[in-house]
């Protein structure tokens, strides 16, 4: 499955508020379910998420169980300069994924 869908308006005017939306393919296994043999299925969720805009922190979040599989995240930032938005998240297996979106900002 495609791992991530990111939606950001890529051409912006300075001062404009814009939304960053992500859908991440992830099982978000809560650690509370059992398989058909009665064994607990190990927890595997995205536990950290952060987003920077030209190295400035926009959002940092700690995630907990009880978030559905394939989570949807949305938040806002304000356009300042042309540059990159970098989103990074880590799951319980220690897998780190980074996605980058370039935006162009005009005066």
């Amino acid at each position, binding site marked *: 499955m495609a791992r991530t869908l990111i939606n950001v308006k890529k051409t912006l005017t300075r001062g404009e508020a814009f939304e960053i939306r992500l859908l991440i393919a992830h099982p978000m296994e809560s650690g509370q379910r059992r398989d058909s043999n009665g064994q607990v299925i190990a927890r595997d969720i995205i536990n950290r998420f952060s987003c920077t805009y030209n190295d400035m922190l926009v959002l940092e979040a700690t995630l907990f169980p009880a978030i559905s599989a*394939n989570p*949807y995240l949305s938040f806002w930032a304000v356009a300042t300069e042309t540059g990159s938005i970098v989103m990074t998240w880590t799951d319980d297996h220690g897998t780190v994924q980074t996605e980058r979106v370039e935006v162009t900002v005009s005066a």
Partner: protein
Amino acid sequence: MIWLLLLLLVSPAQAQPRSGYLDAGPDSRAMQDDDTANPAFLWVEQGKVLWGSLGCGGCHGDVATMRGVAARYPKYDAVLGRPVSLARRIATHRAVPDSEDMLALLAVIGLQSRGLPLAIDISGPARPSYEAGKALFHRRQGQLNLACANCHDDLAGRHLGGAVIPEGHPNGYPIYRLEWQALGSLERRLRQCVVGVRAVPWADGSRELADLEFFLGARAAGLVVETPAVRP
């Protein structure tokens, strides 16, 4: 308001089928209305990749050429003498590695027909399959001794537990179902309904399932393709 009046004026004597979209609840509808929030689009993206990597594009060109195709399936195959689903049509001329890949292809191909009215051709030699599917739809089965029609014709709009009973149309499949936390096929949905009345589900690829799905497609005439829909 004007729309409402127009609808009242032109509403035909024969009942227009009602999409399951309308019974899915506001949260599911909001997800379906926004492609950036609909998790099914993770599979759509995968389908686009597979369209290239499995060589579909080599013969068919851009996936956009598939516009209208999903609206015509299941389609009666005169050579085989039975209706074939879109999945079967693909699988019979091209190997698709696994069922997740097939779902992804069905999602991206179905999406090309979004908004087009279903156009299942039940004329001529196809008619007996339609009639066979219709008979299955009305046949009581299982320990609960219920036919599809008991719920989806007679009790549509009423509640079963927490869920509104929809009319049971296939126009949004494959769907992202929140309960499954995944994209799932029409066959998966039908298995749940059959198991729900404590009957034995028809085997995938069986003649019965093919006829039933063919009937469901024709029964939904008047609805448009909504693939990939979202259900609770």
